[in-house]
């Protein structure tokens, strides 16, 4: 018996030809790129005060406290990744998210490639991804492609782990990722250009103006990458070389962002408009390339929020947003035709909140509509309504908090309830204990309910997926940084998976149940604040997952793409004149399918970078970023796609000095 032998290069996805579970990459890309969403109930925090021009004291900060509603909830498991900390390092969203525990990022290739995120074992489609509070999750189905967000816009990313539906509605079984873009920041400007490996070019420009009572920010960004690289695979054929080329893998993304705030009408009005779009080659899998497939997408978001005091300590907030998505893709699996999807979503909300010395309370009502027009699916729409109540009671000067939250929601014919109870308690000095338990669900997507495309059939009888989970952690926060270690468990049931329902036809079914539990730890310290600028960051996740429903050969086995260990470490030194950093990430072995047959081996990747100030007056700075420092060309993503070798990116950035590093 020959176990575990491979005969040729594996592939991560496949053509939908067979009477069995298959997802082609084009489908995933198409669905992920076609995103509609409800508008956000939350919005970005008030803009920070502009800094005075001139010499800037470089202060290496520990990660800031969270800002979004979900992140501020009592007992929430939150990691805030401050992109400004990585300014100039050409970090993608995947690179930023990899610094958080409990998070698994799949970046299927190099710069600009399809990037999805999962949290605590939930799939990419079960993680709510927000852009400035506006959900990006596609109604059509699938996860959000983070590469569609220009990385230059990212100011910080808030990762809220756990069943988080109270603040952001259905769909957040694993958690929430809130990507926060830059805010208007006085009279500032910046521009940058990047060039690097595999034909990668990036450029962005940003300007901000305003003052105490109003602010305006405009930003444009573009990224292009040829994406062509070589990789090494053992094809088990001694007669041929083992070096292959990843071709037809280019991408380009561009976008514009306009944000403003004004103090008027006794309150504050925040508004934002964002447009982005791009084109991406769809290379297929190494063993099943699709050299003619491609995808184009475009997205536009307009959002506004007005907040003012109403009575005493009671504030009212009115907000609304509209989002439009378009995607077109040429898919070999569908006979080489071009398929199109277009979505439109709008939501309005009205909220009142009260914050007192011993607690807070918030109530919000939302209403909206989702529309989708897609080849193979027809025209569909559904109204959405939600009522959310949340509050907390605090004691010990706010150091002890406990707060319940509940959200009652209807999307089309499906109604559901999300709930959460969380709390925190000081233990000793800077050490505290936090814990939360919650329940939420995900309404079946339009694709799952209605998509008839090729061999994929719909199932209008699907039920929502349900997630129940909780966690607890000991947290320490102090002037030298913060640290947390905790455990979590999540039970997912009625999971939707595509199964064969007739000969060469796939349809979604509520058939799976799984348990994911583990330990998360993170440390972020600034031990030598004013000396060498030493700063460190560590994140570790242990995950134990199990399939709880199925035949004997899979029962209790690890879930696919669920490595037991993930470890991230970063060390930085330096100050205003020059700095340097080094990173390491280790991911243990993982499986590509239930049953432990196809394996992705453990992977250690190292990275490093440095920057030097060239001209203080112009804020001119040169950055060097190196990924995959050891040039390991045998690495695969969690779907079996090859990853690029050593990637070198050089960035030159200029701007008003207070935009260098806050």
């Amino acid at each position, binding site marked *: *018996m*020959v176990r*575990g*032998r*491979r*005969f*040729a*290069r*594996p*592939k991560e*996805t*496949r*053509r939908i*030809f*067979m009477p*069995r*579970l*298959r997802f082609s990459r084009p489908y995933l890309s198409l669905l992920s790129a076609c995103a509609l969403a409800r508008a956000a109930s939350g919005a970005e925090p008030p803009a920070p005060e502009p800094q005075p021009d001139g010499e800037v004291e470089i202060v290496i900060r520990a990660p800031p406290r969270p800002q979004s509603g979900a992140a501020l909830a009592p007992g929430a498991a939150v990691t805030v990744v401050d992109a400004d900390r990585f300014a100039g390092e050409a970090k993608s969203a995947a690179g930023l998210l990899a610094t958080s525990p409990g998070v698994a990022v799949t970046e299927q290739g190099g710069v600009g490639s399809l990037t999805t995120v999962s949290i605590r074992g939930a799939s990419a489609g079960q993680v709510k991804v927000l852009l400035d509070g506006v959900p990006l999750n596609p109604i059509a189905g699938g996860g959000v492609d983070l590469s569609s967000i220009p990385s230059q816009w990212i100011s910080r990313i808030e990762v809220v782990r756990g069943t988080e539906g109270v603040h952001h509605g259905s769909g957040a079984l694993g958690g929430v990722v809130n990507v926060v873009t830059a805010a208007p920041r006085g009279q500032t400007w910046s521009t940058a250009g990047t060039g690097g490996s595999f034909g990668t070019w990036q450029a962005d420009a940003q300007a901000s103006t305003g003052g105490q009572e109003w602010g305006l920010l405009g930003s444009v960004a573009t990224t292009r990458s040829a994406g062509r690289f070589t990789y090494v695979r053992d094809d*088990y*054929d001694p007669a041929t070389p083992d070096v292959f080329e990843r*071709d037809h893998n280019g991408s380009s993304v561009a976008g514009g962002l306009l944000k403003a705030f004004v103090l008027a009408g006794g309150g504050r009005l925040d508004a934002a408009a964002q447009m982005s779009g791009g084109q991406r080659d769809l290379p297929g*899998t190494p*063993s*099943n*390339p*699709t050299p003619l497939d491609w995808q184009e997408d475009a997205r536009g978001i307009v959002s506004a929020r007005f907040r003012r005091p109403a009575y005493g300590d009671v504030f009212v907030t009115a907000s609304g947003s509209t989002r439009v998505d378009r995607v077109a893709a040429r898919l070999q699996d569908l006979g080489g035709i071009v398929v199109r999807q277009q979505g439109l979503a709008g939501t309005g909300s009205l909220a009142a909140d009260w914050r007192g010395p011993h607690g807070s309370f918030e109530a919000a009502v939302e209403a909206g509509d989702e529309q989708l027009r897609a080849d193979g699916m027809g025209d569909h729409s559904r109204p959405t309504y939600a009522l959310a109540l949340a509050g907390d009671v605090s004691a010990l000067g706010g150091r002890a908090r406990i707060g319940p939250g509940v959200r009652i929601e209807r999307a089309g014919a499906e109604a559901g309830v999300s709930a959460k109870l969380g*709390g925190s*308690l000081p233990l000793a000095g800077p050490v505290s*204990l936090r*814990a*939360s338990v919650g329940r939420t669900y995900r309404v079946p997507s339009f694709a799952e309910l209605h998509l008839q495309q*090729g*061999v994929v059939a719909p199932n209008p009888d699907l039920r929502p997926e349900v997630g*129940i*989970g*909780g966690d*607890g952690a000991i947290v320490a926060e102090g002037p030298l940084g913060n640290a947390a270690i905790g455990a979590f468990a999540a039970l997912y049931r009625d999971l939707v998976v595509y*199964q*064969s*329902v*007739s*000969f*060469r036809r796939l349809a979604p079914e509520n058939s799976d*149940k799984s*348990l994911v539990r583990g330990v998360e730890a993170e440390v972020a310290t600034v031990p030598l604040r004013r000396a060498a600028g030493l700063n460190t960051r560590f994140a570790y996740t242990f995950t134990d997952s*199990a399939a*709880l*429903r*199925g*035949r*004997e*050969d899979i*029962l*209790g086995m690890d879930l696919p793409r669920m490595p037991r260990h993930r470890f991230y470490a970063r060390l930085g030194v330096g100050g205003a004149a020059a700095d340097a950093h080094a990173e390491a990430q280790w991911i243990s072995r993982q499986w590509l*399918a239930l*049953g432990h*047959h*196809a394996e992705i081996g453990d992977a250690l990747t190292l990275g490093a970078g440095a920057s030097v100030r060239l001209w203080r007056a112009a804020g001119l700075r040169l950055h060097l970023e190196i990924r995959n420092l050891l040039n390991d060309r045998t690495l695969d993503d969690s*779907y*079996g796609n090859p990853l690029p070798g050593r990637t070198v990116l050089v960035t030159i950035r200029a701007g008003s000095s207070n935009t260098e590093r806050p």
Partner: protein
Amino acid sequence: MTRTTLILVSLLLALAAGCSKEKLCSSDLALCDGHCTALATDPANCGACGAACGAGESCYAGQCFCPWTTTCDGACVDLASDPAHCGTCDIACAGALLCTTSDGGTTSCATACEGTGQVPCGRACVDLQTHRQNCGACGRTCGSNERCTGGRCVADLYLACFNSDEVREATGSLAAAGIPLPVAPGPIGLAWVGDLLAVASAESRGAETLATVHFDPPGLRRTNVLETSVPQPDIEYLAEHEGLLYLAHTSLGTLLVVTPAGKVVDEVRLAPVGDPDPNPQGIAFAGDKAYVALNARDEVVVLDVSQAPACAFGAHAPPCTTEVARLDVHSLASPTANAMPSRIAITGGRAFVALWNLDPVSWKPPAESTGRLATIDVATDTFDTAFAGTANGAIDLGTSCLSAADAAPYGAILYVTCGAFDYPNILGSGIVPVDISGTVANVLPIVAGASDQAPGKLAFCNGTGYVGDRNSGKVFLFDPLAASTTIGAGVELCPPSNGWAYVADIACGP
């Protein structure tokens, strides 16, 4: 602290309540003592978990019965060899005497076994080659509806039940036999190689697995001889030729040549590096040539495999095959359709290739389309346009037969199964006889199928045709000599999963 502790305890209790494991069995199996078993045929759990049949009894349809049709004091006995009931219930052989039945049919107590080939099992004289309760070895009892042939417990039919991940046995009259044999997920191909039944499985939940089923004592069992670790496993077909197994290795678009022990002799790339997966499907042989249908390329590739046995013995180094010809069958499809060649039958010097003939977007037959067979002259490896009676070499099966699925010859007639992919209302379902005895193919009237029947795999065993349904777990019995105009109701032998079953392959028993 107390409140937080309460939260954590509540969380743990809530999670524990929902975290029980649910083992799933095939829909016609039951979970007994933690194992899935067939209550219909398992003598240890006949009709209900723990309901064991008595000694010598078999289980059929959930009822215990005596295969010898004889009971003595309520016990099921074989009067031909039972020393306690030798010849009749009332005769017990004394002392060390054996109970034996002579070649003439006389049963008696004797000091030695008298029948040809008999050996004593205890004090019962039996022929280990044929005795159901001592098949191949003393005490080795065959399962329900199995027969003992050559010292092996076997059945008339073997079915690859794709959805339930099993190989199942049945009698020639379509009665379930034995106990389902679990195999790797997605069994799709069966092929005899010597005394072993090879089973190819490949489904997304598992690996690509080649197993061999052993029938000799101590009992029916399988051995996985080859497991390939590819991210998206897919094998579409298994065939045997000259003692070697040929697998349509669709996940990587190659043809695997494997020994019965699982040694890979060669891996033949069927499309250039960088081209999309050719989706190899059916494989058939004519002499030293292998014909492989490349479904996604609308091609049939012809390989010279004459060196493969030498490769298997180490007398020849790979590559063990050479490409002889490559035929483009796209022009044989209906307008707007792709030909999508699938299974191949070779008889009378011609290869007949079933064409799905589908619209590549909807995977449905285009309007006004017909069923089609490509006809290839294996001497020249060109389309036999004269025999097909068409300019492109396609035999037109008519509008009542859509999406040819399989073909198998019986005498001078080639039978073609048809059934469109347009589920659940299947059009063009049936079995079309094609008279291939003359110089031009003559398509005969269809044996029509119902709208819920999608005839797929066709095998002739002992003069009877058996057709696997692609739309259910049914097997249809088909008598080629009867003048039937419709396909019968069939018998469900493979259980459904998610409301659907698929009889992926049928192999005749030995």
